[in-house]
């Protein structure tokens, strides 16, 4: 039985989409190791696409200057706001050498979209973005070098969290500890090793964890003893915008900000995560550091 069949049997990879003849031919089994696919999922985020796609395309230029290969992959999840038309215009402008666009006929939801991106990426490393995020283009080579050096499964950097012009906080700016079982502080906007994520089954599509699949992935990787690495440099910008997935989830389940993890979570998601990954409920484990801090100019950095 092939690895793909095993994974599909775990209901992680969306077999229906992979079975679609148009998409299955895009599946890239051999992924080039010395490059990165910048993935932008889109669902009705047309106003934000020029910013996110523009920053990603500029990052491709910086990556090539640094000797890496790169592509931008935008998958539109059956938007109804005319995003497709805009994306086709961007595609016309930039050609197909660095920008690949895919348009789905029916809406799959973000976790399945992310799994699809893992499957169709040309490169071993994928920079996971949201359509309303913005990359700091100059810094992506630093993060790519770091994930190659450290062999991390997931590598995160600081995200400047903005509400309008105001800087609210830095997201993803701390090393992974077992406090992650209380709430997630590592945003989905991160660099991942496709091979390692596919090996653990990709993002969960369990509907009870909808909008928390990135949190589940981080804990799943930790449980599998994969390396989570934090690079203390700015990876990009996170904009608090109405209609973002987190905002919608927060509206549905009620916002709570946990003082220890500094993260939003719903009670149901938290209970599920604690049940899956912190079954003993032992509070002494919470500060245990499971991630690493790294900078390519310094190496692994010692903390107190």
């Amino acid at each position, binding site marked *: 039985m092939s690895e793909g069949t095993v994974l599909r049997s775990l209901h992680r990879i969306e077999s229906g989409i992979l079975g679609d003849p148009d998409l299955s031919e895009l599946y890239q089994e051999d992924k080039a190791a010395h490059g990165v696919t910048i993935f932008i999922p889109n669902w009705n985020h047309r106003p934000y696409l020029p910013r996110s796609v523009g920053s990603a395309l500029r990052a491709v230029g910086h990556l090539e200057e640094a000797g890496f290969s790169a592509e931008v992959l935008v998958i539109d999840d059956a938007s109804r706001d005319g995003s497709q038309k805009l994306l086709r215009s961007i595609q016309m402008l930039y050609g197909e050498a660095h920008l690949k666009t895919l348009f789905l006929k029916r809406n799959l939801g973000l976790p399945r979209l992310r799994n699809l991106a893992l499957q169709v990426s040309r490169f071993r490393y994928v920079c996971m973005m949201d359509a309303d995020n913005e990359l*700091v283009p*100059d*810094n992506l080579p*630093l993060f790519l070098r770091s994930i190659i050096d450290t062999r991390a499964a997931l590598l995160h950097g*600081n995200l*400047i969290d*903005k509400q309008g012009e105001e*800087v*609210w*906080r*830095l997201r993803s*700016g*701390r*090393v992974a500890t077992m*406090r992650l079982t209380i709430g997630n502080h590592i945003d989905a906007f991160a660099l991942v090793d496709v091979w390692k994520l596919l090996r653990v089954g990709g993002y969960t599509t369990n509907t009870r964890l909808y909008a928390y699949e990135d949190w589940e992935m981080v804990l799943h990787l930790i449980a599998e003893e994969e390396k989570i690495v934090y690079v*203390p*440099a*700015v990876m990009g910008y996170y904009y608090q915008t109405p209609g973002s997935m987190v905002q919608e989830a927060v509206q549905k389940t009620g916002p709570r900000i946990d*003082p*220890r993890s*500094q993260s939003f979570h719903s009670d149901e998601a938290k209970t599920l995560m604690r049940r899956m990954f912190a079954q003993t409920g032992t509070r002494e484990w919470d*500060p245990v*550091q499971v991630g690493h*801090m790294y*900078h*390519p*100019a*310094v*190496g692994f*950095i*010692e*903390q*107190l």
Partner: protein
Amino acid sequence: MSEHQLLIVHPSSGGIFYQELSRRLFTACKEELREEVALCSSRELRNMTTDRLSSATLAVVNPVECAATSNDSSGWCAATSSVRSAFFSKLALGYKRIMVLAEAVESKRYRQQFRVPVNFNALFDVGFVSQKEKHLFPDVSYCFVFDGPTKKEEQVIASLSTSKRHIPWALVGCQTPEHLKLVAALVDYGRYPEGFCYLQRPFDSGLSPTGLAAVLSKTNYYVWSSEDSFAHYESFRFIQALLAGAVPCKIDNSHSWDDFDIPGIFPSAQSFCAKVQEEDYWSMYSSAREFYTSKGSLAEHLEKALHLV
């Protein structure tokens, strides 16, 4: 008072900052001043004999933190009130008592030191700028101690030469609104987005001293903003930068520093970036080094202050 041993008392655990200051004071005294100097933790002081204490001048680095960490356990639990009382009772037995601080006079951390149940003969305020005019506790005489280099530090600083550094700037501290604005401004400015930025929140582990030194040894500019609203210069950051070959750069748009000759203070991130464009790293580093080594050593300043007690 030279016939009495100088005992430098430091907090037994907790923040690295005051432990590091204690170690530097001890080194300075040992190198240049006197043989009869010793370093001890607040826990050790609590267990000391009356005879030894009565013949010693006690330089207590952050008395409040010393009392809070004087319990026997090395864990995170603060000392109980009875343990703290025992610590203060022992402290009262000293021949003379000096409080050593490096805080803004207006800060809560400074003011709370004067509520402890022990009288101090003097306060040594270690830093770059005297705060005598603002000191509000006349019962404890104020002595400013310039935070100069120890001999060993002077040698390290003198031995550094220009080298290729891969990190343009480093910002390490607490996640305050000022630091958030600063990091956004440095990244938005666009020329140097690849800086190192680690801003802690409560429950986060800080960088270890060796971790920070390793980062700064690859960094051109060590930048920071005040973590509160007071006009206070963080001399420890200046020293950390200089020892690792980085240029210390404080960004402060709330206060004027024109009357002081401390190099590397900028009113905004933009003015810092403009300066970096017009003057090279090594020239800025050399200015900072010259300022620091021209003011006299930590031992010289300590000696002057000790004569006043």
